[in-house]
């Protein structure tokens, strides 16, 4: 009989009977968390739906002010990072191929490749945040801000909008073919669109930043040799989290940047 101190492999926590039980519990845990994340974001998607149906014109003009090329580039960056995350899982599952002849070994697999793929994922996450920063800083500078701060750069109510504010707004109004009312021909509730834009992309951005820390942590553990073909659950789980971040952005991109 195995004593309590070592009842199985090193990676088996003492409150689990078998590695399979531990793995299944971890998987159920992450799926429950991801389901919670979906519901968490859904509140914002509902807010989006309500306001878009109420103020379609404001959403159209607001969307035409966004830079869809940068949004699209960010979509590609995140999709690529999802691929590298999936590849890091594959690499970790295959593990070290000791004793396998060099010509029979699976490519892009093993501990070193797992670390590499995770590092590439982190680089993509930084790339995403840098592009997001460029978009935000331009909007902050020009005064495309939510609520009462609309037209007031850097949330400074005493400051008045720079020349680009009126120029870009005119271009967006003509691109959206908006001819309705509102002060200066601008749909009033464009303020609400920007409120929703900042909260949705901001919350998503926070998830990206958290993802950077989580992937870095697991990549470090992997580098130190904590995982193998037998035990790689944390790599699997952190990748699932990262795919969810990608999943949310897949909806945010067309809903915010590509409104007709």
């Amino acid at each position: 009989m195995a004593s309590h101190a070592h009842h199985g492999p090193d990676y088996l926590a003492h409150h689990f009977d078998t590695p399979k039980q531990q793995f299944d519990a971890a998987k159920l845990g992450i799926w429950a968390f991801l389901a919670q994340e979906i519901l968490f974001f859904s509140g914002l998607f509902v807010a989006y739906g309500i306001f878009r149906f109420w103020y379609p014109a404001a959403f159209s003009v607001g969307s035409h002010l966004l830079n869809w090329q940068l949004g699209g580039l960010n979509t590609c960056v995140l999709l690529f990072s999802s691929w590298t995350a999936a590849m890091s899982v594959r690499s970790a599952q295959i593990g070290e191929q000791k004793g396998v002849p060099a010509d029979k070994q699976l490519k892009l697999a093993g501990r070193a490749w797992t670390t590499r793929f995770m590092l590439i994922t982190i680089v993509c996450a930084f790339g995403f945040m840098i592009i997001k920063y460029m978009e935000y800083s331009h909007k902050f500078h020009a005064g495309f801000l939510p609520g009462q701060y609309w037209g007031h750069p850097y949330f400074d109510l005493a400051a008045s909008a720079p020349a680009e504010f009126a120029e870009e707004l005119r271009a967006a109004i003509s691109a959206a073919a908006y001819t309705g009312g509102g002060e200066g021909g601008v749909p009033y509730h464009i303020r609400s669109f920007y409120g929703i834009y900042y909260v949705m992309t901001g919350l998503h951005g926070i998830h990206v930043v958290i993802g950077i820390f989580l992937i870095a942590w697991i990549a470090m553990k992997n580098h130190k040799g904590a995982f193998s073909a037998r035990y790689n659950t944390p790599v699997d789980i952190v990748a699932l989290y990262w795919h969810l971040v990608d999943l949310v952005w897949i909806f945010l991109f067309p809903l915010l940047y590509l409104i007709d």
Partner: protein
Amino acid sequence: MATDAHAHDEHGEHDDDYHHHQHIASIKGNLIIFGALLLCTALTVAAYKVRLGEANLFVAIFIAGIKASLVCTFFMHLKYEQRFNILFFLGSFLFVGVFVGYTLNDTDHRGDDVQGRRIDPSNGRWAFGTAAPIADEGNGEFIQLPPEAAEAAEEAEPDGEEPEPEAAPE
């Protein structure tokens, strides 16, 4: 305890009850999914550029749905996941559907809230439980209601379509 029966398994022979089996994706498979996702992204931009008007929102959600399914099924290995976990995760989308469906069915049919009064945007008439000569066009402009809408509102009100809360005590 199953533990004891399998205490020596860590060095080789093991059975299914002890070790989990993971699905390992191929490089080619992952690349195909990545390519399909990029293709869908190009498609969603193309759909935007041709200006579909009313259909814009639904086409965008449809394409995003395809992309999301690809990510879930293959990158997240949902296809090879335990049935209970699949149910758990996909179940959340069901509840999002209920949340979105019921809420928008309400808000989209009561019109905008302007000083406590509402007009139904689908027919330009008063939403139930409201009566006032102003409405919001959705652009921040407050306008007078056309006389026929005001009449319709007068008619709708006494029908008791929306009883006062205290009048319905059950």
